[in-house]
């Protein structure tokens, strides 16, 4: 099962990949595990990031303006 992440990352060479796929194709439990990993990735990918406070963003833009005005 430790190969799943390498497999999903295209990190296996051709022969390991072929062996992995043969096994997964033949073993319903392992293929269920692989599918669960895919679903897990999808769930994780839907977690929303936090936003920057608007005032922090304003300060940053002010810093940018200063830099621009500073003659660089």
């Amino acid at each position: 099962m430790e190969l799943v992440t390498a497999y999903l990352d295209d990190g296996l060479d051709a022969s390991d990949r072929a062996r992995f796929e043969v096994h997964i194709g033949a073993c319903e439990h392992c293929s269920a595990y692989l599918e669960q990993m895919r679903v897990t990735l999808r769930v994780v990918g839907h977690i929303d990031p936090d936003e920057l406070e608007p005032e922090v963003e304003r300060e940053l833009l002010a810093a940018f303006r200063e830099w621009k005005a500073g003659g660089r």
Partner: protein
Amino acid sequence: MPPRSPVDDQELVERARSGDEEAFALLVTRYSPMLLRLARMYVPTDALAEDVVQETWVAVVRGLERFEGRSSFKTWLFRILVNRAKTRGVREHRSIPFASVGGGADEDGDEGPTVDPARFTSEGAWTSAPADWHDDPEAALDSAEALRIAREAIAELPERQKIVITLRDLEGLSSDEVRNVLDLTETNQRVLLHRARAKVREALEDWIAS
């Protein structure tokens, strides 16, 4: 989050370099949420994370002229953030020894298999099969509750696993980008990612089963 703007980073960076404030603002908006989330893993409070993100952008402004585009802007930006966050994390007595990582085994006290060995017979066959999640309503896994479970599982991961899964699966960095940002070997990156994903999977499995 709105769909990614079609203007690519490189173009925005060049415009910002020539003094275009709007381009800089777009970069800040595009990346600050990711930076905040990443910074928060190195420092103990939201306020400190905001400080680190702010420092990072100031460093970006100062460094824009030197940025030559040998790495992607994103990689460059995240490296700056990680360096600053680490410095700040050390100051706050909460350092993460990424640089000291040697082999694949890690100091998380966690080198066992990622699926509970009790799930296998001595011949390596599964004793209790992973459920077919397709039998569950897709909606369950798309629910806010599933997101909460995943979020909590990630929050409880050892720090380095948390950082790797966040960069890869939440922020969508490639394995090469993550290796460059964190100075990890390919194997290390993959081991940390696998352990992290396996634990989130397990948390979701437990939740579905209950």
